[in-house]
């Protein structure tokens, strides 16, 4: 599904956070890149219908989000937070099952179809063996995979992820990113924010760089990611050599 965002502006307490943001995201992985506090999370909240007072338009396919109810929106786009801490401990299977809630009538409990969706989501992410474990007792990386499975159980075409690797150790970062990449290859439209340009370069099909609320760059990672862009975003010197971003001044 194609996401089209046009002239999106948003202010918080008279401070502009997003200014005239315009972009398109196609199926595949789009990395939203930028330092902390440039409006990545705000952009996602607007797209998910969690922030209302914006101007401009956000369309999933041909549907304008402002015309959709939260339930309809939940049928189109699923959200994967950076981390999630429920008040009480739930079994992993039940956490994933909660992804199906939007499709249920308000006064019903998940049935056979929902259980199948949850099983399949666990299989797709490759964590079926965790199904009976207590979510709160898993490692951060495993929790993140459970949240991805929960989003898949929601059966949407769009996945929106807010820095899914921010709290993870190196191994789990790679594990999560590879999972996300394989989902993007299966045809999901993935929007993933990250502050790590190397992750964007290695895994994304497209990079959308935000800086001070504006789109600074938008295009294929190898074309867009340059020493100049990274200097603008983060104020540091780097060299981009092939698929690698190497910190430090140029040695040539």
């Amino acid at each position, binding site marked *: 599904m194609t996401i089209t965002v046009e002239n999106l502006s948003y202010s918080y307490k008279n401070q502009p956070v997003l200014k005239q943001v315009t972009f398109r995201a196609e199926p595949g992985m789009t990395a939203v890149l930028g330092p902390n506090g440039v409006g990545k999370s705000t952009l996602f909240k607007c797209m998910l219908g969690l922030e209302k007072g914006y101007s401009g338009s956000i369309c999933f396919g041909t549907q304008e989000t402002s015309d959709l109810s939260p339930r309809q929106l939940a*049928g189109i786009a*699923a959200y994967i*937070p950076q981390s999630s801490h*429920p*008040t009480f401990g739930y*079994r992993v299977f039940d956490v994933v099952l909660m992804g199906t809630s939007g499709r249920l009538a308000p006064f019903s409990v998940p049935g056979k179809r929902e259980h199948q969706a949850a099983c399949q989501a666990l299989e797709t992410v490759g964590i079926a063996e965790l199904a009976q474990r207590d979510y709160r007792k898993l490692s951060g990386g495993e929790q993140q995979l459970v949240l991805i499975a929960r989003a898949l159980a929601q059966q949407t075409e769009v996945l929106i992820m807010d820095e899914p690797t921010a709290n993870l150790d190196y191994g789990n970062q790679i594990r999560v990113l590879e999972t996300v990449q394989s989902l993007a290859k299966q045809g999901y439209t993935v929007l993933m924010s990250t502050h790590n340009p190397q992750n964007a370069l290695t895994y994304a099909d497209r990079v959308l760089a935000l800086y001070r609320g504006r789109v600074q760059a938008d295009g294929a990672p190898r074309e867009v990611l340059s020493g100049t862009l990274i200097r603008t975003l983060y104020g540091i010197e780097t060299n981009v050599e092939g698929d690698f971003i190497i910190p430090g001044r140029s040695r040539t």
Partner: protein
Amino acid sequence: MKRNRAVWKLGGLVALLMALFLLSFLLGRYPVALDDVLRSFIGREQDTSVSAVVLQIRLPRILLACLVGACLSMAGTAYQGVFQNPMAAPDILGASSGAAFGAALAILMGLSGQWITLLAFAGSLLAVLAAYLVGQRAKGYKVVNLVLAGVMVSSLFSAGTSYLKLVADPGSQLPEITYWLIGSLAGAEMPQIKMALIPMVLGTVPLLLIRWRINVLTFGDEEARTMGVNASRVRLVVIICATLLTASSVSLSGMIGWVGLVIPHLCRRFIGNDYRHLLPASLLVGAAFLLLVDNFSRSLLATEIPIGILTALVGVPFFIYLMLGEERFT
């Protein structure tokens, strides 16, 4: 918790409650045998004094204990979910003191019956919403904020109730109000119980229907919304229902503490946190617990021990056990 195992556990609880229900008829000064009880139920008991003891004295009291226990415990379980707070309970949120104030006000104004329940509900709802709004806006640790806000609201309503006692007619109204505040199941009468059954059912049925969505709310409002669950609407429905349960039980039996905090946690340990099983379990365990405690209350000593004292005696040590236990509690 596997689904089937949870269903078996619920079945076990139903059987336990039913056994306890029948055995409770045997307790008391007038000796009654189990077959007397069963005969009285189907109207075949020849000895009218036996059937009078069973149906007119013991039945109302036993029913009342079950209903009040079930209501308070379900209310606590529901509050904990929608406030995302393991410390939430009717007594801690101020729901009970709000209800007591409303009931006292109704007595002072000379109202009776459904009006007492209605005013208790109004006071209770006011207290919970005040505690929620204050706790929500305060900065810092949300679990503690809600508890502190509840303590403040509680104390405000208790002050109000004290004033009502002061201006109440010492001959007739004051004893009635005082009785409410102590919390007792001794005044059980069938017509009152039947009347309270309406708000109790009105509170229970929506809660049971919406119970899956309470799970989703424990992940926070934003996540719930992105999963297609309207968090504020679910919360409002649950608050109204749980408060209705609190108010109708307070207007029947006064303030009985600890049931709404301790039983939900006992059930969480027993059957897990999934509200699909947790809510029915807290209904059953709450009913069984208060019935059991009330049996002690009326048979342990020659004079009756007020039930509120006994629930505290049982509740507090269990709560300390939870706090000091291996599992993280808040």
